[in-house]
């Protein structure tokens, strides 16, 4: 058709040649912005059709169009969105519209827009171009054909651009979600490996700020029955109780949408809180996150709130782990301390017993789970005499073992003074009475052996009566002495003397031996002890000792509740 007109309308040919459409198509389909396409479209149309006014609308929803660009006049801001009630199927002359009172017609008439050309792509109206010819005449056939072609090309380019932009937006949203997932993964990994509370909170804060783009927030946690702020980036002057009282919100909520009293809403606004996110464990609110405005006032989306809710719960679990870990550490520390105490205590007992000609001596302390207060000792007095001792401090644990260490120090310090045993015991009792309360007692058996004369002098301060199994199988109990230590100051102690003969077996023991219980709660008893001593009397002190220990352990089964302490002296 263009070729046919070419012969008699020379100027039209120059204005409307196919090349110009091709050029236009090339430009708008290259990598340019939507704004560029629209600007190029309106200017090309105005230039080719000799127009003094131009306007381009794009459809934003059914019948509603937004003014994208305007040339040759100024459109009031509030008129940029325009509702066009008529279907835009083909070119419309404004003055031919019958419903002249419609708002869009008035606006276009007032701004002297003469004709509307729809932008249609695949039967879909994308928008329209409005123009006013300088001549105010109708479009010629050539002009109509040209503008229709130009509009079609422009519509195709616009449609493509819009769908690309839409894709980019979808991609961005996807990217954001991937990033959120990575952050969650990252945090989960990191949280499970840090057990320091401050560091967990710090890392959480940084991730919240970075991911959500929020600078002000507070973390409130339930400790016992009370909510407490553990970290806050709101101003110091805020009323903390407002945040602590937000535990009633069971779901993440925007402050603008919550149902609350005017007073609360005002308080939240004053602090600058935009959203409230609960932290829940097993469906119970254990904490609250109060977050302020985001960067440049970007609104919170549902995804954002859900994300904060997720990392909040991660935080809660991580803090719980760190609390459990701290508890375990504390417990382990106490156990370690006890172990050390036990080692120290064991170290105080003689490691190697001295050997004396004519005597066979052995002793042992098998400690129970806890540090105890049993004590035995063998001390060289001089060339002719040595001292044996056994004691039991009431109670268990560290206090008992401290007192035991004290007792040992006293005895070892007093022995070289060569006091009589009754005097020595009296002084030890006085010292113990002065330095301990009324609730701590010690039973002590102390004996001095004269190696040459084979005589044994002793004091028994309330201790389990030691056995002497005589060669003729008679039993002797060493009971002379006095009150147990720590009961009363200035008590006196009586000494006992026993003449030993070869074959005598002396056994000192603590109640861990005689009172060891079997699973039925029946005590081992002194009878059983005596039977073992009798049956093994011809064997070494070591064998007698080992036999007693193994029988007691067998008797009490797996559970040993008290220290087993034992000293065996055989006269040969």
């Amino acid at each position: 058709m263009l070729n046919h007109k070419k012969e008699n309308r020379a100027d039209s040919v120059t204005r409307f040649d196919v090349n110009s459409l091709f050029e236009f198509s090339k430009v708008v389909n290259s990598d340019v912005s939507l704004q560029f396409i629209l600007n190029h479209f309106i200017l090309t149309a105005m230039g080719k059709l000799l127009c003094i006014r131009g306007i381009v609308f794009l459809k934003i929803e059914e019948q509603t169009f937004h003014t994208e660009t305007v040339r040759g006049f100024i459109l009031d801001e509030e008129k940029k969105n325009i509702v066009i009630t008529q279907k835009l199927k083909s070119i419309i002359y404004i003055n031919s519209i019958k419903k002249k009172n419609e708002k869009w017609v008035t606006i276009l008439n007032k701004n002297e827009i003469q004709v509307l050309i729809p932008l249609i792509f695949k039967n879909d109206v994308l928008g329209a171009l409005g123009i006013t010819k300088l001549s105010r005449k109708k479009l010629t056939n050539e002009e109509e054909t040209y503008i229709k072609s130009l509009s079609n090309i422009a519509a195709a380019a616009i449609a493509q651009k819009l769908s690309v932009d839409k894709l980019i937006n979808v991609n961005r949203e996807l990217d954001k979600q991937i990033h959120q997932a990575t952050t969650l993964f990252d945090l989960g990994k990191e949280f499970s490996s840090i057990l320091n509370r401050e560091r967990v909170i710090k890392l959480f804060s940084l991730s919240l700020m970075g991911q959500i783009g929020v600078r002000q927030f507070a973390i409130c946690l339930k400790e016992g029955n009370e909510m407490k702020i553990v970290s806050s980036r709101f101003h110091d002057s805020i009323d903390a109780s407002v945040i602590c009282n937000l535990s009633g919100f069971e779901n993440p909520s925007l402050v603008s949408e919550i149902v609350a009293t005017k007073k609360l809403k005002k308080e939240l606004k004053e602090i600058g809180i935009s959203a409230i996110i609960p932290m829940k464990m097993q469906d119970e609110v254990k904490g609250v996150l109060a977050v302020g405005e985001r960067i440049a006032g970007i609104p919170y989306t549902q995804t954002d709130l859900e994300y904060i809710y997720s990392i909040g719960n991660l935080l809660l679990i991580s803090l719980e782990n760190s609390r459990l870990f701290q508890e375990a550490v504390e417990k382990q520390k106490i156990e370690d301390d006890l172990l050390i105490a036990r080692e120290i205590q064991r170290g105080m007992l003689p490691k190697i017993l001295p050997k004396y000609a004519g005597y066979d001596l052995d002793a042992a302390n098998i400690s129970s789970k806890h540090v105890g207060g049993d004590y035995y000792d063998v001390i060289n007095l001089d060339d002719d005499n040595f001292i044996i001792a056994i004691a039991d401090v009431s109670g268990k644990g560290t206090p008992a073992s401290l007192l035991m260490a004290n007792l040992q120090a006293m005895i070892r310090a007093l022995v070289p003074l060569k006091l009589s045993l009754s005097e020595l015991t009296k002084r030890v009792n006085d010292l113990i009475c002065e330095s301990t309360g009324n609730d701590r007692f010690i039973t002590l058996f102390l004996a001095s052996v004269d190696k040459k004369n084979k005589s044994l002098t002793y004091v028994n301060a309330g201790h389990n009566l030691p056995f002497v199994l005589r060669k003729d199988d008679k039993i002797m109990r060493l009971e002379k002495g006095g009150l147990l230590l720590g009961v009363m100051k200035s008590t006196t102690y009586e000494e006992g003397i026993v003449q030993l003969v070869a074959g005598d077996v002396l056994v000192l023991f603590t109640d861990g031996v005689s009172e060891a219980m079997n699973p039925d709660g029946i005590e081992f008893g002194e009878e059983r002890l005596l039977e073992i001593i009798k049956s093994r009397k011809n064997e070494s002190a070591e064998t007698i000792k080992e036999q007693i220990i193994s029988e007691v352990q067998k008797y009490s089964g797996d559970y040993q509740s008290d220290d087993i302490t034992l000293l065996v002296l055989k006269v040969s």
Partner: protein
Amino acid sequence: MTNFKINFRESSNIQIIDLKGYLDAHTAPDFENAIQKIINNKQYNIIVNCKNLSYISSAGLGVFMAYIEEVRKNKGDIKITNMSSKIYNVFDILGFPLLYEIMNTEEDALKKFTKSI
């Protein structure tokens, strides 16, 4: 153990921080300490050069958020430069370009600072 490094430089009284490697939840506290140290020295004109930064997590971005207010209150700024498109994308999807000056090169940022001082 970690493949994250921070280097400090100074150019005409402007503190430049070079970030290298992975800035993730694990290494973010190191970066935070670095910024904190600079602010403690009352140095508020800061450029963070991301040329060799290969990854940034939310916690890493959080460090920027945590100090920008204090820095600007003291009439300074944190400008971020030399980002790879991958790193820029992370800043972009979280809306950081609205709040921070992100520049192509360190020289651009230096020029901007010297103009404003």
